[in-house]
C-alpha cells in the first residue's frame, strides 16, 4: 500500500498567551523580557499560604475568543488542578479547566487550494503558563526563571478535522489572525505567546478506527509545524507498512535534522489527578455579560475580506491574503487611508513586502516600518519623484533601517529626473548616438524603443522617469 491509502488525522492544541497587564492569579506584570525572577510574588512563586484570585480580564478575553470562533459560552464554569511535578511549575499543579471549560463546540473556516472547510473547536479553556527553564550549554544544571509562571493562557483544542499539513497551517494562521483581530493575544510566535501541541495519527482509508497518535509539544513556527506533520505522518505510514506499530508518545521535533525524536525522561502515561480547585469559586456568566462582550467584538477577517472586495475592488485572493493577518490588514487600511491608492498598497504588501518576509522567514508582525512610511513611498512613486524600481530599493532600505522614504532618497540621491528639459536633452543625445536604432524603429521594429529607453536609463543611472522617456522618444522619432 502507499501513502494514498492512508488518511492523516491531525489535532492541534493551541496555547495563546493573553495580553492582560497582570498574571492570571496575581497582580504581577506579564511583560515579556524582564530580568529573571523579577515578576514574582508569593502567589506565582507558590509560597506556602498564598492564594490565587482570578483576573477578570482573563475571563473576558477567553469569552471574546470563544465568541469570535463560534463557540457556545458556558454559563457555569470552574477551575481545576492538574497535578504533576516539574521545575517550571511552582505549585506542582497547574490551575486549568477540566470538565467545564469556558467555551465549547466552536469552529473556524479555512481555505486551502482544495477549497473551503470548517474545522471544529472542541473547547477553549483558561489556564496558567509555566515558568521557563534555561538550559545552560556548558554549565552543570538548568536554571528556572518564573517570570512567565502564571501568565494567562487560553488553550484552544481542535476536533480531529485537519487532514494535512496545509490545512493545519491554514487553521493556525486563521486562529492567529482571529486572536490578533480581537486583540486578546499578541500571538508573537518567537516569544512563545502563540504555540501549538500537534497530535498526528494515521489510519487506513475507510477505516473507522483512529490510529494511535503521537504528540509534539510547544511548536512555534508554521514551517516547523508543517514539516513536522509531513515527516511524522510519513514515518507512521512507513512504520505501519513495515508491519510495525505506533506507540503513543511525546516526540520532539528537531528542525536541524528534520526528524522527530522520542522525548527522554518524561513519563508518557501521566495521571494528572484533576480535581476542582478549592481555592477558587465557580465562574457563572450571565446572558447580559456575554452579550456585552459580543458587542465589543471588532470586525473579524471574514467581514473585512468582503469589504475589501466591494470597497476597494480588490481581487478575492488579494482580499483573503491581506486579511489573513491583522498586522497586514491594519497596515493596508492605514496606508490606503493616507495615499488613497488601495491597489498600489495591496500590491506592495502582497508582492515585495511578502517576498522579503518570506526570504527572512518572518511574519507580517515583524514588518519594521510603519504604514505612514509605506504610504509616503507610494505617493513618491505616484508623483513621479521616484520610479517604481527605485521604490523597491527604498523598500529594502525600509526593512534595514526604517525612516522617512523622502529622507532615504535624498540620502541616496535616488530622486527621479522628471524635468522635461533635462529629459529632452538626454533623449536628443541618445538619438544622436544610435542612428541605427532610430532607423529600426521607423522601420516598425518596436523593440528598438525599449533599447533606446534602456540606454537613456543607463546614462542617467536609472534616475530618469521611464514614462517620460518613452513619451519623449516616441514624439521625437515621429
Amino acid at each position, binding site marked *: 500500500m502507499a501513502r494514498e491509502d492512508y488518511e492523516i488525522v491531525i489535532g492541534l492544541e493551541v496555547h495563546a498567551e493573553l495580553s492582560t497587564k497582570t498574571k492570571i492569579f496575581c497582580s504581577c506584570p506579564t511583560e515579556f523580557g524582564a530580568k529573571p525572577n523579577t515578576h514574582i510574588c508569593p502567589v506565582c512563586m*507558590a509560597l*506556602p499560604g498564598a492564594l490565587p484570585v482570578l483576573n477578570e480580564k482573563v475571563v473576558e478575553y477567553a469569552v471574546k475568543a470563544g465568541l469570535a470562533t463560534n463557540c457556545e459560552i458556558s454559563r457555569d464554569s470552574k477551575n481545576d488542578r492538574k497535578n504533576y511535578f516539574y521545575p517550571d511549575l511552582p505549585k506542582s499543579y497547574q490551575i486549568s479547566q477540566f470538565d467545564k471549560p469556558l467555551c465549547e463546540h466552536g469552529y473556524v473556516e479555512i481555505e486551502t487550494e482544495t477549497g473551503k472547510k470548517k474545522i471544529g473547536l472542541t473547547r477553549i479553556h483558561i489556564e496558567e503558563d509555566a515558568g521557563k527553564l534555561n538550559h545552560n550549554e556548558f554549565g552543570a544544571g538548568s536554571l528556572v526563571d518564573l517570570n512567565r509562571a502564571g501568565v494567562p493562557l487560553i488553550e484552544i483544542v481542535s476536533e480531529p478535522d485537519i487532514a494535512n499539513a496545509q490545512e493545519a497551517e491554514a487553521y493556525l494562521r486563521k486562529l492567529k489572525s482571529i486572536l490578533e483581530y480581537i486583540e486578546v493575544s499578541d500571538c508573537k510566535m518567537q516569544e512563545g505567546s502563540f504555540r501549538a501541541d500537534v497530535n498526528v495519527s494515521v489510519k487506513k482509508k475507510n477505516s473507522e478506527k483512529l490510529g494511535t497518535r503521537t504528540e509534539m509539544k510547544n511548536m512555534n513556527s508554521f514551517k516547523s509545524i508543517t514539516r513536522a506533520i509531513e515527516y511524522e505522518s510519513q514515518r507512521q505510514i512507513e512504520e505501519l507498512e513495515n508491519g510495525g506499530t505506533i506507540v503513543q508518545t511525546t516526540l520532539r521535533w528537531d528542525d536541524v535534522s528534520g526528524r522527530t525524536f522520542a522525548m527522554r525522561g518524561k513519563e508518557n502515561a501521566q495521571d494528572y*489527578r484533576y480535581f476542582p480547585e478549592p481555592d477558587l469559586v465557580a465562574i457563572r456568566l450571565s446572558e447580559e455579560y456575554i452579550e456585552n462582550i459580543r458587542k465589543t467584538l471588532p470586525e473579524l477577517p471574514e467581514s473585512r475580506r468582503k469589504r475589501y472586495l466591494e470597497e476597494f475592488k480588490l481581487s478575492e485572493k488579494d482580499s483573503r491574503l491581506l486579511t489573513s493577518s491583522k498586522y497586514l490588514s491594519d497596515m493596508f487600511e492605514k496606508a490606503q487611508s493616507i495615499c488613497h491608492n488601495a491597489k498600489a498598497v495591496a500590491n506592495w504588501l502582497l508582492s515585495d513586502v511578502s517576498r522579503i518576509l518570506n526570504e527572512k522567514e518572518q511574519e507580517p508582525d515583524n514588518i519594521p516600518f510603519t504604514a505612514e512610511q509605506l504610504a509616503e513611498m507610494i505617493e513618491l512613486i505616484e508623483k513621479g519623484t521616484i520610479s517604481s524600481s527605485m521604490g523597491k530599493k527604498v523598500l529594502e532600505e525600509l526593512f534595514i533601517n526604517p525612516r522617512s522614504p523622502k529622507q532615504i532618497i535624498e540620502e541616496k540621491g535616488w530622486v527621479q529626473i522628471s524635468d522635461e528639459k533635462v529629459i529632452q536633452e538626454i533623449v536628443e543625445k541618445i538619438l544622436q548616438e544610435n542612428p541605427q536604432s532610430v532607423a529600426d524603429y521607423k522601420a516598425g521594429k518596436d523593440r528598438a524603443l525599449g533599447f533606446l529607453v534602456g540606454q537613456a536609463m543607463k546614462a542617467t543611472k536609472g534616475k530618469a522617469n521611464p514614462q517620460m522617456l518613452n513619451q519623449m522618444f516616441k514624439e521625437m522619432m515621429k
Partner: protein
Amino acid sequence: MDITKLTVHELQEKLEKKELTVTQIVQAYANRIEEKEEKVQAFLSINTEEALEEAKKIEEEGRSTSLAGIPIGIKDNICTKGEKTTCASKMLENFISPYDATVIENLKKEKLISLGKLNMDEFAMGGSTENSAFQITKNPWNLHTVPGGSSGGSAAAVAADMVPWALGSDTGGSIREPAAFCGVVGLKPTYGLVSRYGLVAFASSLDQIGPITKDVTDSAILLNLLAGHDEKDSTSAEVEKKDYTKALKQDVKGMKIGVPKEFFGEGINTEVKEKLEEAIEIYKNLGAEIEEFSLDIAKYSLAAYYIIACAEASSNLGRFDGIRYGYRTKNYTDLEELFKNSRSEGFGPEVKRRIILGTYVLSSGYYDAYYKKAQKVRTYVKNEFNKAFEKYDVILTPTSPTVAFAINSKCNNPLEMYLADICTVSINIAGLPAISIPCGVDSNQMPVGMQLIGKPFAEETILQTAYTFEQTIKFRETYSPKFKE
C-alpha cells in the same frame, strides 16, 4: 497579682486604668515562658526580646488601640514576615516568610505583640502534636499526656499562661480538640469568615483560622480582629463586620439546643458523657429547651473528611519540591532524585501517609469511588445539618470522645488516631462554626470539652450560649492546670 493568670479583657481593663504597663505585661509573660516552657515545650520560636522592645515602643508612642501591647502566640503554620514559619516540619525548618498572613496584618494594625510561634502537628496533620518534627508539647494538666492537636502548642501555651491567647487553625478539629484537652476555649469560625491568606494550606476547603483563649469573652474579642472579608482569599465571605462582644449576654432562655444521640453513643468515654449530661442539666436549669434527636453523620463525615482532606493536602503539599524554598536533599544526581529525596526526607511519616492516601483517592480509576463519593457525602452532611438547624439554634456534643490521652499511646495506629476526630470533622465538612469550652474535669482532674455548633455565620449564637454556661459554672475559678509530672 499574677499578671499571666489574667484574661485579655482583664489586662485591657488594667492597662486602661493604668494599673499595668505594656512592658510589665510582656515581661511577666517572658518570665512565665522562662519558667514553664522547658516542661511544656509549646514554642517553636520565642520572640520575647523583640516583644519587650515592641512593648517599649508602644509605651513611648502611647497606646493607639484598645488592644495595643497585648501579647499573643501564633501557630507556626501562619506566615509572619521576616520570621520563620516552619509548620513544625523539617521541610520548612529554615523558611523565612517574605509576607504576613492577612490575620497577622490585622493583629499588627491593632498593635498586638507576638511572643513567638507555637508547636503543632506537622502541616497540621494530627490530633496530638506528636507529629511535630521538632518536639512533643506536653499537656499542662498532666505532662504525660498530649495537649491535643494539631494546634497543641497554642492550646498548651494558653493553658500554661505562657500567652494570654493564641491563634490556631482548624481543619477537622485542630482548634477545638486541643482546647478541650487543655481546658481552654477554642472557636472554629464559619468557613470563609476568616481569611486563609497566609495560612499554610492543609485542606483548602476545610481550613479556618480561629482563636484559642482563656474564656469566651476573649474569644469574641479576638474574633473581632480576625473576621472580615479579604480580597486575597477568593473563598472569603462578604459578610458585614460585627462586634462579637455584643453577643456576650447571660441568657439562654427559650434557646433551642439539639443533642444528637449518635454523638453520645459507642466510643464516647463514660466520664466525658457524664460531664456533658451535667452540662445539659445546667442548660435546662437556665431555661434552654433541650431536645435529643438523631443526626447520623459522624462516621460518614469522618470517612469523607479523610478522603477530601488528604486529596487536597496531596496537591497542596506538591509545592514542597526543594526548588524555590524549603528542604533540599544533599542526595541527588538528577531531577527525579531531587524531588523524591527532598520530599521523602523533608516530610514526616504522617504527612507522607496522608499524601499517599490523597494521591490514591484522586488517581485514575479511584476518583469516582472515593473523592466524588466523598463530595456527595459532604452534600448529605450539609443537608442533614440544615434540617437540624430548622429546629435548633445550637447543637451540643462532646468535643472529643475522650480526655487527653497518654503520649505515645496512639502513635502506631493511624486509624485509631483518626477516630478521635469523630465529633469535630463533620463541622468542617459542613463549613459551620463551633466552639469548644470546658465543662468540667474527669476523675483524673483532666478537662472535658463541650462543643456548641451553630448555623453558618451564627458565631454570636454559639458565643452567647457558651458565655452563659461559662458564667454559670466558673470553670477557670475552680480548676487550673497543675503541671502534673
